[in-house]
């Protein structure tokens, strides 16, 4: 909720600021001139982007950013962003590229230049108690399943599979209920479970269901740069990375469970010359 309020304030302030926005220079040229690529990444979303004790931002997405910088032959600078300011930073020109766990949504496409092809996808899955031995979504029928209040997929999961969703305020509360055995599983973003499955605290739990309601993530540049040189460069970059299987490599490096999306993209681009 707070995030939404902040986003609204941002939007209001930005509309006032728009008049003063400077005319955008060609980003690709600017990057080469400066010798520095500034990429906005998350610093609070392990393992996609988080801090190590030295303060450096590391993870799946920072590694992608490093690849882009390497290809351009420039230095990399990572700028921590949050969901409520990532698109504004891009519009302002504070960052050249955004790789910040952003879902591809039609309304966002109007604001920033989301690059095709998309680079990752998260979906909905269940962190289930091993005792429940979940094999398919239909097994959830009539069972108590933990969830997070306000998650958009609570309703479809309840309606389609007949799960009895017990919605909690935050992740911590849902975790506690799950560990205490109040529900057979926890329905949430599959990417959020990646981190937990590596933790011995969750050794009695598993993620065995196929991911559903998949939402792809997109990297983004300034809206007017999408069809420009910089957007085309990024588009080619992502396609190449899918083709070479580099994203899958990074996924393994950060111990993220193999996503069906990356595999599918790899197969699709492998065939293309």
């Amino acid at each position, binding site marked *: 909720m707070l995030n939404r309020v902040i986003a609204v304030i941002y939007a209001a302030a930005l509309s006032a600021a728009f008049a003063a926005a400077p005319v955008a220079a060609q980003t690709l040229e600017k990057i080469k001139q400066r010798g520095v690529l500034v990429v906005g990444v998350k*610093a609070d979303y392990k393992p996609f982007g988080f801090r190590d004790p030295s303060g450096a931002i590391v993870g799946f997405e920072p590694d992608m950013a490093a690849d882009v910088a390497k290809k351009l032959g420039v230095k990399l600078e990572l700028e921590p962003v949050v969901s409520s300011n990532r698109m504004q930073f891009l519009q302002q020109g504070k960052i050249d590229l955004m790789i910040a766990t952003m879902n591809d949504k039609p309304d966002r496409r109007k604001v920033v230049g989301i690059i095709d092809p998309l680079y990752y996808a998260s979906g909905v899955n269940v962190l289930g108690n091993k005792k429940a031995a979940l094999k398919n979504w239909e097994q959830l029928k009539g069972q108590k399943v933990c969830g997070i209040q306000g998650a958009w997929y609570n309703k479809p999961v309840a309606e389609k599979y007949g799960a009895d969703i017990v919605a909690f305020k935050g992740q911590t509360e849902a975790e506690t209920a799950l560990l205490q055995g109040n529900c057979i599983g926890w329905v949430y973003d599959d990417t959020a479970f990646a981190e937990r499955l590596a933790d011995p605290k969750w050794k009695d739990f598993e993620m065995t269901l196929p991911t559903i309601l998949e939402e792809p993530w997109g990297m983004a540049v300034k809206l007017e740069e999408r069809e420009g040189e910089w957007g085309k460069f990024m588009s080619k970059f992502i396609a190449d990375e899918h083709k070479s299987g580099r994203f899958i490599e990074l996924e393994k490096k950060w111990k993220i469970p193999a996503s069906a999306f990356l595999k599918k993209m790899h197969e699709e681009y492998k065939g293309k010359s």
Partner: protein
Amino acid sequence: MRVAQTDLPVLRPFRIGGGEREKWRLSARHGVFLAAAFVLSAGVAQAQSAPSAPAILATIWKWTPLLAEGFALNIAMSFLAMAIGTVAGVPLGLGQISLRRPVRDTSWVVTQFFRNSPWLVLLFYCMLLMPFEISIAGTTVSLPGWLKSTIGLSLPVMANVSELVRGAVRSIPYGQWEAAEAMAFSRSQTLRMVILPQCVKRMTPPWMNLYAILTVATPLTSVVGVSEAMTLTGDILSSEGRTELLVPMYLYLLLAFFLYCYPIARATVALERRFQVR
């Protein structure tokens, strides 16, 4: 000997200051309480964590250098915002007591506007209205987020300093002005040589108070994405992914702010006592 009750209208001796005001001040007891809360929460967290997980205090210690870096940014921002705010606020305050009506009115409006605007709103405006870099005569100077938010924080400081100056000048007994006039001082001479030197003394305690308030307000900048101690604490928590770490970690940060602000609060009290008008 028992003091006899009396119905006579006796005026009790008037006591200045006294313990009444003291109790609202930050005291060592608050520090002890905070430290105890921190130790207690760390103990509880330790009991909650998995046996294989590293100790809570060790984990916090591991992240302390990073947190200290963030905290240093908080202190730097508070220093800079205080400096800018004071330099801008003193002329504004003097403007409020100007004999020229347009100057007086404009200063009043500016002061009231920034004094009564929420700090967070001012921060958002500074963050978004100011460009991320400016070109002056060909050279491009970048304005990082922390600098922009420091300017955002200095605006309310400026308005508060302005009020401090106005209040301090007004609090000097009028006889001082008259005496100076009788000795053929001009208005500006009176201000410079008679009034303002007396004001400095009176303004110092509230000015230090304002500084302490500003310091504890710097974590506001975490909302606009500045990587200061508060933001880093959030990052650290998500990096550790241990729910039990949440309470001790934030208490640790609170303790750091206390340790910084406590000496300032004590010094303010001491100065207030010393400068008390008797």
